[in-house]
């Protein structure tokens, strides 16, 4: 009993071993019969290297037929939602370095394409399928190409290709596609100047590509300016100090910064600081350089503004018993702010435009983005897009400067809307002031005439209304 049991067990084990060997022998042959080398899609991004879904591209798939096999057909499963034109599929078979012509027929079924070869492809051959006019799904994503192949032994599964990253097709891209098809746009682009400087499609894509750069520009100048104003105010006050040494420090600071190009200052800071071991983030350093540079100009603007306040204002404040500090904060600075607002805005415009110089040291701002895009696309249009981005900010500011200037000019002339008078009778009710009340009316009438004349003669009138001591 025991022995026969042992025998049975031994037989079972032997059978298992044979089966195992058989499986092991079979599996490798089926696995290596056809290997997938690569699957790539041709970039179809305007001025870029990405592959966008929903736009024509060309899928290239390559595989190698392994030893001892002969390939009769390949079926590639493309991502769901992909479309292609099967009739123009190119099939290339290479035996070593030699190209062999093998007749074939392609048939689509859903999102897969089957290529049947008229004669079997021998081992060691390279098979390349190029599926043209193919479009990946427009929502984008990472896609792998899978499929099956047929040998004399039957149908087997292909190894998945490495994934292809597909960029989602945005409304912007759709618009570009639409533009591409418009005859008017094609005609426009056929004019060398228009096509080179203002290509609509590229203008559109430039706007989206340059947008981050524009934000960097704005961020740099907006972050820098409060510091510039603060520093400028400090140096303006230092420059009008009564102490010679303090004045000298301010003058040196202001004159050196105003007397050298910003470009040079950028180079000194960006290349100089790392050499003495100070490494600051590019954007932060950009903010610092812009703030320091602007502060020198603002210091001069503020100084001139403070000095333009008539001495009578100081005297009036003093005669009320105000301290110097109270006079500055309550009387002089508020008036200075009003007076310098247009000039400061102009300086802000300059500072904003000057952030473009930071592109020379690798700050990823608007100019840098447009330069890169122009290099890739070989077209000037991205620069035009950059110009538009600069103008979006500067034109309204220029307009505001004009409005503020004319408002200040008008208010110094004594024009402008007057608040509503409440109870004009109050004045006349004062019995001992009837004389002055009549004077008020005379003055009002006189003022009206004066205002009317002021409008006519405005350009010829001197700016200051009241004579100063």
């Amino acid at each position: 009993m025991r022995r026969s049991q042992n025998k049975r067990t031994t037989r079972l084990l032997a059978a298992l071993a044979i089966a195992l060997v058989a499986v092991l022998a079979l599996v490798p042959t089926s696995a290596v019969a056809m290997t997938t080398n690569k699957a790539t899609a041709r970039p179809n991004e305007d001025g870029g290297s990405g592959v966008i879904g929903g736009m024509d591209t060309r899928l290239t798939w390559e595989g190698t037929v392994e030893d001892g096999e002969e390939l009769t057909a390949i079926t590639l499963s493309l991502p769901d939602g992909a479309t292609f034109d099967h009739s123009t599929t190119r099939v290339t078979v290479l035996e070593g370095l030699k190209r062999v012509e093998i007749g074939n027929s392609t048939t689509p079924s859903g999102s897969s394409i089957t290529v049947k070869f008229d004669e079997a492809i021998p081992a060691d051959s390279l098979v390349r399928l190029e599926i043209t006019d193919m479009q990946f799904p427009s929502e984008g994503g990472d896609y792998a190409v899978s499929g099956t192949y047929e040998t004399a032994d039957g149908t087997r599964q292909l190894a998945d290709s490495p994934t292809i990253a597909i960029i989602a097709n945005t409304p912007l891209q759709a618009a570009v596609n639409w533009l591409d098809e418009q005859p008017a746009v094609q005609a426009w682009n056929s004019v060398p100047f228009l096509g080179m400087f203002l290509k609509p499609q590229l203008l559109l894509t430039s706007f989206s590509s340059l947008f981050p750069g524009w934000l960097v520009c704005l961020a740099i100048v907006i972050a820098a300016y409060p510091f510039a104003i603060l520093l400028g105010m400090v140096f303006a006050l230092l420059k009008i100090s009564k102490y010679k040494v303090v004045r000298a420090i301010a003058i040196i600071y202001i004159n050196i910064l105003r007397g050298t190009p910003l470009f040079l200052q950028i180079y000194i800071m960006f290349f100089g600081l790392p050499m003495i071991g100070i490494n600051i983030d590019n954007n932060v350093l950009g903010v610092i350089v812009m703030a320091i540079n602007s502060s020198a100009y603002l210091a001069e603007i503020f100084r001139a503004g403070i000095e333009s306040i008539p001495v009578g204002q100081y005297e009036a404040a003093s005669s009320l018993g105000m301290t110097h500090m109270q006079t500055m904060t309550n009387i002089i600075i508020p008036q200075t702010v009003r007076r310098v607002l247009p000039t400061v805005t102009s300086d802000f415009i300059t500072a904003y435009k000057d952030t473009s110089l930071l592109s020379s040291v690798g700050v990823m701002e608007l100019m840098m983005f447009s330069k890169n895009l122009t290099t890739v696309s070989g077209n000037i249009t991205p620069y035009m897009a950059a110009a538009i981005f600069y103008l979006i900010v500067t034109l309204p500011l220029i307009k505001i400067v004009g409005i503020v200037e004319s408002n200040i000019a008008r208010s110094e002339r004594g024009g402008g809307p007057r608040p509503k008078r409440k109870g004009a009778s109050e004045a006349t009710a004062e019995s001992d002031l009837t004389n002055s009340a009549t004077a008020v009316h005379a003055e009002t009438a006189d003022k009206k005439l004066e205002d009317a004349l002021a409008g006519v003669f405005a350009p010829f009138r001197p700016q200051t209304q009241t004579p100063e001591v």
Partner: protein
Amino acid sequence: MARKSHEVIEVPDALDANKAAEIAFAHDQGLTSHAFTKGEHPIVRIEHLNKSFDETKVLRDVNLDVWPGEVVVVLGPSGSGKSTMLRCINLLETPSAGHILIHDNEITHASGSEVNKLRRDVGMVFQSFNLFPHLTAKENVMIGQTKVLKKDKAEAEAEAMKQLEAVGLADRADFKPAQLSGGQQQRVAIARAVAMHPEIILFDEPTSALDPELVRGVLDVMRDLAENSGMTMIVVTHEMGFARDVADRVVFMEGGVVVEQGLPAKVFDHPENERTAEFLGSIK
């Protein structure tokens, strides 16, 4: 920086001793202010005041006493040093030499904070108004009260409205200076000075920058102040009518010296000095 060392003159102690003589002198001069009879000290005493701008001597040894409640009108041709003397009283100009005493206190050597304190008691109205253009009429009148006297806003506003009403401009409280005529601006400036309730107000040619038809309103306000406020007023002006009607005393200056002073009637009708007569003659 232009401050020069002052001549050493011994004054304050001499004041009491000489008071009787002074009063007698004052009466001789026709200085009739009620203050004398009460035996008060002058509120402003200017002694041997000298002021030079670079090489130009503007004031040469000016002596003048002003008594509490007095309205003193200073007359004289342009360049006679009237305004400079006035500006020395609240130290907008630093005297080159001499003494200025307010309530018997020497102010010419006052420190910064003492000067600020002094100026609370000495208001000033300027020829060019010098209103703060970024503030409304009301805010102009309020700012000294809130910042210097540290009054709270409501209190300062009530006072401002009261003073604007007194100058007939309550209805212009929210106007900016640029929206007011010169005459209105000057009346706001007066309200601004009066709202601080100073003991002395200095008027530096308050109507000279005004068109003729606007002068009257300002003078009316000043007349009202002189008659009803009891404040001491020192007025530099060319308004002869105002001087004759309102002044307790008229001071005539020329070439940086006080040439003549006395009752308006006396100075106008019987000037003792030849230059005074000549000047008044040319004005008439």
